[in-house]
């Protein structure tokens, strides 16, 4: 566990972002859902504090799993546009928690995170979100169109996800150079 006083400013910002995103999901699951629980939200906020202090631990995985589980438990399957918007925001917040936690552990905690690294991670984060937009669109369409018990569109969405992954792989693969060992 790292002392906050020994962290660089950029690391503190990263951890603050992580804490804010996790707290926002916890509060949203309490305030914006019909089955929200104050106790669960408070528990998540307390766990968030520990995760912020040590983002490289397994507690980060536990926090993300609990945040998603509490949200899925307290919110019904989205049917209105408001519910979908909230779901997307929760997905974005969880992505922020994951990326900020990963970036916070990549480099020495006391070292300022290089600007180039921040730009690259931000760019890729946006890329991931854009890549997920088709999947999310399929989900909305599937929810509106599908009769109960028909999972065809769900599988179509999964196939789309795989396709998006393959497209990402092809687009991000560096060009081969002659004579390199990589």
């Amino acid at each position: 566990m790292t002392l906050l006083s020994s962290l660089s400013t950029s690391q503190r910002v990263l951890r603050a972002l992580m804490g804010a995103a996790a707290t926002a999901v916890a509060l949203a699951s309490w305030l914006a859902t019909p089955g929200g629980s104050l106790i669960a939200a408070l528990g998540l906020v307390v766990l968030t504090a520990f995760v912020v202090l040590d983002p490289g631990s397994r507690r980060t995985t536990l926090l993300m799993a609990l945040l998603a589980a509490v949200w899925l438990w307290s919110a019904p399957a989205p049917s209105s546009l408001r519910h979908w918007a909230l779901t997307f925001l929760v997905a974005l917040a969880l992505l922020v928690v994951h990326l900020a936690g990963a970036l916070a552990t990549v480099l020495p905690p006391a070292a300022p995170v290089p600007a180039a690294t921040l730009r690259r991670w931000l760019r890729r984060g946006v890329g991931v979100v854009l890549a997920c937009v088709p999947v999310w669109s399929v989900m909305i369409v599937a929810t509106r169109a599908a009769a109960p018990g028909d999972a065809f569109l769900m599988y179509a969405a999964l196939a789309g996800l795989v396709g998006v992954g393959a497209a990402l792989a092809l687009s991000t693969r560096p060009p081969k150079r002659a004579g390199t060992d990589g």
Partner: protein
Amino acid sequence: MTTPPTTPLSARWRPTAAHLRASVLGVCFVAIGVFMRRPDAVVIGAPLVAVAAWSVLRRPTALPRVHVWLRHPVLREGQTTAWTMAVAPGAGVEDVGLAVSEAPFTRYTPPSQSVARGDIGAAATPTQVAGPDGRDGSDGSGTTDEPAGPAEQAGPAEPVGGLVLLDVECQSIRWGVRSPGAATCAVSAAFGAWTWAPEPVSAEPLPTVPLPEVFSARTATPDPDGLVGRSRSRRAGDGAELADVRAFRFGDRLRRIHWPVSVRTGELNVTTTFSDEDAEVLLLVDAMHDLGTSTGYDGESSSLDSGVRAAAAVAEHYLRVGDHVGLQVLGAQASPRIPAELGSNQLRRILDVLARVRVADGGVVDKRRLRAQLRHPVPFGTLVVVLTPAVSVDVLAHAAQLARRGQPVVVVDTLPVSMTTGELPDDLLRDLVPDEDEVGDSARLAWRIRLLERQRELQRTRLSGVPIVPWVGPGTLDAVLRDLGRQRRSPRVMTR
């Protein structure tokens, strides 16, 4: 550029907790969404799956070649060296970082003790680094690119031929054998999903020789007795300083004839000079106690700091003027006696021994060692300079004994001024008592009594003919050496 003086570090790429998190949670959320018909679970899991897939597809395929080393084997107080990390990144490497752990009496630049660089993939091109054996790092066909030379600026440097250098500067601020903090380096790939992290690298102990304080003595040593040198002896001979004008005798050199006196008196007269000879100086550094606070070469000095730096300064001065200088550290473990020699190599030997001085812990063994060291014979005519905080009675008694034998002895008092008061602050008093709970009025009273005893012992030592001076840098020894010179020219009683 020369070859990095270390073998490349070895490790292998490992998936990080973040990658496992993205993979496991992403798949779980999507599975929950499919099997429980919760599209919102798929929405939440999709970004994580995308991140995990991206990370797998950009997995590094080659090991980076990393060298980490400390640039200098020996330092002077205040000098700076650097932990240097040279990375020849392979494909997929995106971020590199170097962190150095904390070490006492060491200042780091940057103060965070760590540096990172994040544009490795864009800036560096695949290259090969020659190892210390001269063989190429990867396929045997590449060029040789290695970092070397002093660290000019800490932090990430520009890539040199595809090689990325990171420096964390370490400034040693106190003499002694320093253990620079271990260097930890890390290399990571896309989304922090893969990390290449070898074991932390520790450097050999780094001797830091004392920075000699400014010192000069304009008065010659009282009893030079060598062959060559710049100290005026008491004997007539070839030299620069005028001794007498006397009548010409057979064998005198004609160029010594003093014509004004010869013309005036009507007979030939010649000038005589004192011969220039070298003196022998023995430095006795009292390491039985280290009193006061030490905050480095530019801060407060403890008694041992003052003693060591003063010994270095005196040795440097007398060796430069051609005298023989020897050294004995009293009470210190594994500190060999250095016989009096001259030359720059002798200065190096003395500084090296001074850098390794460790204060005695005051046990029976240390006292026995001190007595054995004090029994070493001192050649007659040697100027003995005792650098002591004058807390150890044995050392003062030894100085008085040498003086009674006719040796020229000077005691330099190295007790810090802050310690000469009876009203010591708690932080200074804490170093004097064995248990922190004992810090209080009784300990303060005990120190006051010790100071009174010390004053009495100093007085007795002075009465036995040993001058005691505080260390003030240039001119510290001038007045006492002049007095000693006068004493040497007058008749005296001594014990053999």
